[in-house]
């Protein structure tokens, strides 16, 4: 037996008791798994992605009204998201800014989809929410339920009921809009950044008022651009694949897909004519706008189009 195997066996210890418990659970007919949370969807999409949409229609103001009267920031959702993200972002000012930004982003997407003709199926979403909530709770007996609710309150400061009826409901609405857009892509080439800027401009009064009320610091304009440092792994036309966590000799001969799979992290960038100065396998530091990918790529591999510099 090798040392790694020996060490892993020692650390996991004796699992005989676990196995016997497991057998009892299966053989006694308790076939329903005790696992509490089998969400099939990416339920936290509103807090993990920056998916922003905007198109010609929105610029035309056909859907949105310039006075912002159609839009209202969901205060309850904002308050719960603050609690939800409190363990991820320690600085309270930064927390408020980030949560607000993500909330506006998801709202902009939903509103944008509607501007293109998306009609939310409220009944279907209601049924989906009820089904997921039922799936979540059905594995618990009363004692377990109390324990889990208590843990949830201690960790996040809100109940599962609040989670489902506010955060998850919004997530379902958001996901439905994303899926609709995936099947009904906009004709005009527009980046996520354009979407965000236009949305903020359209609803400036409402958003500003909410931010003042909640004492939300505005996002630092200098934070628009971020940096990505890595190895130039592929150059295709004007697009450059930059990867992290692998060396030249590990990726030579691989396809771009294989390289991305092997790399710790990777990103495609659209370069201008300066691409001619680039060589494969050199180290590079790219400064780019992380929202500069086309809205049509929301569900797929993104190419960042706004590269402000590299060295």
């Amino acid at each position, binding site marked *: 037996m*090798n*040392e*790694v*195997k*020996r*060490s*892993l*066996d*020692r*650390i*996991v210890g004796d*699992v*005989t008791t*676990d*196995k016997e*418990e*497991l*057998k009892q*659970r*299966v*053989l006694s007919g308790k*076939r329903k*798994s*005790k*696992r*509490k*949370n*089998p*969400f099939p*969807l*990416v*339920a*936290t999409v509103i807090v993990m992605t920056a998916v922003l949409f905007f198109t010609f229609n929105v610029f035309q103001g056909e859907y949105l009204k310039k006075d912002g009267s159609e839009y209202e920031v969901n205060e309850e959702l904002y308050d719960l998201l603050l609690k*939800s993200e409190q363990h991820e972002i320690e600085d309270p000012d930064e927390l408020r800014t980030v949560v607000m930004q993500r909330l506006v982003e998801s709202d902009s997407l939903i509103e944008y989809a509607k501007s293109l003709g998306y009609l939310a199926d409220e009944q279907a979403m209601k049924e989906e929410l009820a089904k997921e909530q039922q799936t979540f709770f059905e594995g618990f007996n009363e004692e377990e339920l109390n324990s*889990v609710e208590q*843990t*949830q309150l201690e*960790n996040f400061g809100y109940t599962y009921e609040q989670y489902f009826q506010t955060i998850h409901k919004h997530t379902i609405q958001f996901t439905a809009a994303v899926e609709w857009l995936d099947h009904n892509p906009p004709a005009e080439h527009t980046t996520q950044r354009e979407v965000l800027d236009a949305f903020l401009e359209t609803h400036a009064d409402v958003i500003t008022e909410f931010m003042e009320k909640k004492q939300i610091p505005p996002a630092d304009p200098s934070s628009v651009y971020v940096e990505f440092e890595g190895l130039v792994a592929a150059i295709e036309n004007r697009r450059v694949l930059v990867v992290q*966590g*692998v060396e030249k000799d*590990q*990726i030579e*001969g*691989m396809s771009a897909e*294989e390289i991305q*799979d*092997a790399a*710790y992290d990777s990103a495609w960038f659209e370069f201008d004519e300066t691409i001619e100065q680039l060589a494969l396998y050199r180290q590079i530091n790219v400064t780019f706008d992380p929202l500069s990918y086309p809205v049509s790529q929301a569900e797929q591999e993104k190419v960042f189009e706004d590269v402000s510099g590299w060295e």
Partner: protein
Amino acid sequence: MDSVDLEKVMDEYGEHLLKMACFYLRDRETAKDIVQEVFISFYGTANYEELGKIRAYLTKLTVNRCKDYLRSWSFRHLQFGKDWIETIHNERDPLILQEEKAEIAIAVLKLPIKYREIILFYYYEEYNMREVAQFLNLSENTVKTRMIKARKLLKNALSSDYWEVLSIE
């Protein structure tokens, strides 16, 4: 399959599957839940005798369910229990850990999952590179690259004595 057959299968493979699920999930309770699902699913398999290598089949079911769980919302947001690795670190005597050469296992279990599973199948399951690639549906090149990266991460995480042991295996 009747319940007697199922019990035999659980006796034969239960411990192995529980361990693998623990290595993937780093949580004993969730590992039990996952393996329970695997056995329940297996119970419904009509022609299990035709499945050939049952151990590999059950391991694959377990690994896939563990990955589904790691991708799920619940894993990232519902904090039901303390991370197993954290518990080991905080609650066990450092001298005993040293004696058990736990440093290697802890370093392996702290690897990101895509590197950890390569190490698990290569060292723990003792597959060769090609078998790892086949089992995980990856290209051999990808497995090799991930192995290089995994070993680099382990080298950084382990003291030189432990790394020397690992590097010659």
